[in-house]
């Protein structure tokens, strides 16, 4: 197990460099960011040159990348155009998005798996059909529609929530945005769990467990669910990264100043330092989430043992 973890950690290194280099190149392809800094006016050439020098944009891309990576290892992610350190932006944005992601994941786990188990055990019954239909609706309706609709109904018409999340972005404010963010994945989790449960229900070990006279609850939770969770865990694990990066739409709708918002601003203003910095951290999150998923396999299913 220990060797496996180390091997996985070593594998992360080329992925990390490859991903950051790709992003670095992509952002640089978009053109000269300084040109956009002066609004509709042309920057005066002397100031523009000075700014380029300050942000290191006058050097060739490979040199910029090396300098950048060198700085990253000392914890310096550079400076955004508004004079703020990118690490400061991260310190403000990541906690908010992590809270949002936690809310979303909780929804996925609690509601998604519960619904999945219920429908999986009652295949073909009315409740199963209803949930299947509902999940189909949720999957087919784009997130921004769900988001705007909930915002309008709960926020403006009924006044239950505030349409915009405040600067603090507390857990309670993030419930509705979290639900919106989770909605599509939630539907997938439900369907994955349902199929998996329905499949394993007829497995030999379940029959054995029932035959042994174990209580129904124990059969479902310890035997059936535990073995059915592997595809679900895989999905939720990769979803953590996707949720954090893909929160752009939800964050925009509910005015959440998180990672999605900073990335969006960074791309609009073509701020290399912000975009690359944030994406680098997201890549790390992705890698870590995947690692945890792989380790969880072993916990869930003792048959899967890594040397």
């Amino acid at each position, binding site marked *: 197990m220990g060797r496996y973890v180390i091997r996985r950690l070593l594998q992360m290194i080329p992925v990390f460099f490859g991903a950051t280099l790709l992003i670095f190149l992509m952002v640089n392809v978009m053109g000269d960011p300084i*040109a956009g800094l002066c*609004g509709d*006016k042309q920057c005066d050439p002397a100031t523009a040159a000075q700014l380029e020098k300050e942000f290191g944009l006058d050097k060739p891309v490979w040199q910029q990348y090396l300098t950048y990576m060198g700085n990253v290892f000392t914890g310096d992610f550079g400076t955004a155009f*508004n004079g703020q350190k990118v690490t400061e932006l991260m310190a403000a944005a990541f906690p908010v998005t992590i809270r949002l992601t936690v809310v979303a994941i909780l929804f996925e786990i609690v509601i998604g798996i519960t619904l999945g188990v219920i429908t999986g055990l009652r295949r073909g019954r009315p409740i199963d059909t209803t949930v299947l239909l509902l999940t189909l609706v949720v999957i087919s309706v784009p997130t921004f529609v769900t988001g705007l609709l909930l915002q309008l109904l709960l926020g403006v018409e009924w006044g*239950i929530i505030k*349409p915009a999340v405040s*600067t603090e972005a507390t857990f*309670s404010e993030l419930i509705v945005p979290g639900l919106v963010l989770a909605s599509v994945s939630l539907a997938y989790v439900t369907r994955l769990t349902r199929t998996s449960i329905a499949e394993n229900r007829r497995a030999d070990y379940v029959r054995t467990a029932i035959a042994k006279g174990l209580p129904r609850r124990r059969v479902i939770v310890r035997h059936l669910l535990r073995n059915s969770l592997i595809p679900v865990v895989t999905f939720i694990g990769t979803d953590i990264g996707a949720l954090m990066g893909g929160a752009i739409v939800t964050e925009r709708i509910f005015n959440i100043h998180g990672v999605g918002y900073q990335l969006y601003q960074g791309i609009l203003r073509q701020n290399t330092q912000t975009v690359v910095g944030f994406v680098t951290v997201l890549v790390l999150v992705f890698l870590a989430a995947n690692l945890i998923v792989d380790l969880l396999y072993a916990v869930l299913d003792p048959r899967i043992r890594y040397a």
Partner: protein
Amino acid sequence: MRGATHAKWAVCAVAVALAATACGGGGGSGGSGGDGSGIVRSSWGDPQNPLEPANTNEVQGGKVLDMVFRGLKRYNPKTGAAEDMLADKIETTDSVNFKITVKDGWTFSNGEKVTAKSFVDAWNYGADLKNNQKNAYFFGQIDGYDKVHPDSGTPSATSLSGLKVTGPLTFSVKLSQKFSLWPDTLGYAAFAPLPKAFFDDHDAWVSKPVGNGPYMIDSYTKGSQMSLRKWDDYPGTDKAQNGGVDLKVYTDNNTAYTDLTAGNLDLVDDVPASQLKNVEADLSGRYINSPAGIIQTLAFPFYDPAWNKADSDKVRKGLSMAINRKQITETIFQKTRTPATDWTSPVLGKDGGFQDGLCGDGCDYNPTEAKKLVQEGGGIPGGQVKIGYNADTGSHKEWVDAVCNSINNALGNDKACVGLPTGTFADFRNKITQKKMTGPFRAGWQMDYPLIQNFLQPLYYTNASSNDGKWSNKEFDKLVDQANAESDRAKAVKIFQQAEGVVRDNMAAIPLWYQNGSAGYSDKVSNVALNPFSVPVYNEIKVK
């Protein structure tokens, strides 16, 4: 709202179960019965640059400077006229040497006195190349600017030789050439005075700017909110009528608008285009749509020989006449734009140089004449007009498509015009500065100060800073020089209009429309207005 109590409790129960927190709806504006202590909650956008007077060139940062700073002059929020603020006297005999006397009794909100030195130091800082100030060119008219801010190479001086402190409250300015209307430019934020604190501890100052205006910055969380509070000891006559302003950064102006309709916000100064249809009904009259000093035009790449032939002016004029401005401003912009009939803006007023109809028939929709002119001019270069724009912000696609439709209909050729999007604004600007445009492209001008000079010189003078099309005309340049040297204001404006006539005769750029500022406000505030720069006049807003 009333029928929803059940739902509200149900959701509250869920909320409590999940995270155990309060279920507050609505929320008050913290105001207390119109005694001038209420707080205005207003929408905001994240400023692009650090908040320094000479480094702020966009509206969001400009808003804050307008609340926190007062300069020598201030533009009247209604008329746009430059009026003395901290300036006691600005005297000149030759339009080159100016003697400026600063009013006594003004201080910064940290108690420091505003003196002549506060101005001179601030201006020297703004002009100095090593400080990277994006508005440095505003000091370009002052003598010695080329030493402090050379076009290339390193500066040979750190202060402008044309600026001299002559007493505690007096200083003199020498310009590098005659510019009679120069004092009128001094209301621009770049000319604001700066306290010692700015130079002593720059980082601390930028994280919480200190100025001499009616408001003080109470707290500033970059990227999310700034709280400004009334400065009780403000010495000026334009004291704040409210207790303060909370500027909240919104990720999207649609969300800000939703928050306004839900009662969580008092003022939105950028009504999203998609809501313009509902705004009257939603806000029952609390909607402002007033002219601002912004004009949108189509510029041409005069560096491209295909667009700069002897008869090309006919093609340009023909294209201009093929655009149905009235229809586009009504259907696409819901009347938040006004068809342009000259190259300035109505906010200048008649005396300031705005001349309704100066463009003449060149700006009238006339498809038959348009077709004829384009043919006389040798047809469209390459057979197709590609109108360049950036696709990332400002929903330019809609109107560019509409303009092209109009041109196609007029010329009877459905391939005569297409839009040519560029992904990001930065890349779009990049192509323009590198002279890579091959056809007309979107250009816009937001005035820096309400002077006709500002609508002409930076845009059409040979090699001027914002002459994106690189148009050049000796006659025009001569008239502008002449107007700047003219000491009589009315005469100067007349000569500028003659210069504008040259722009018209050559159709150097196609004027499209004047942009309005749009704002919506809640029923908790009153006396809301936009100034000619389309920025809300915050200090006059009253909270009920």
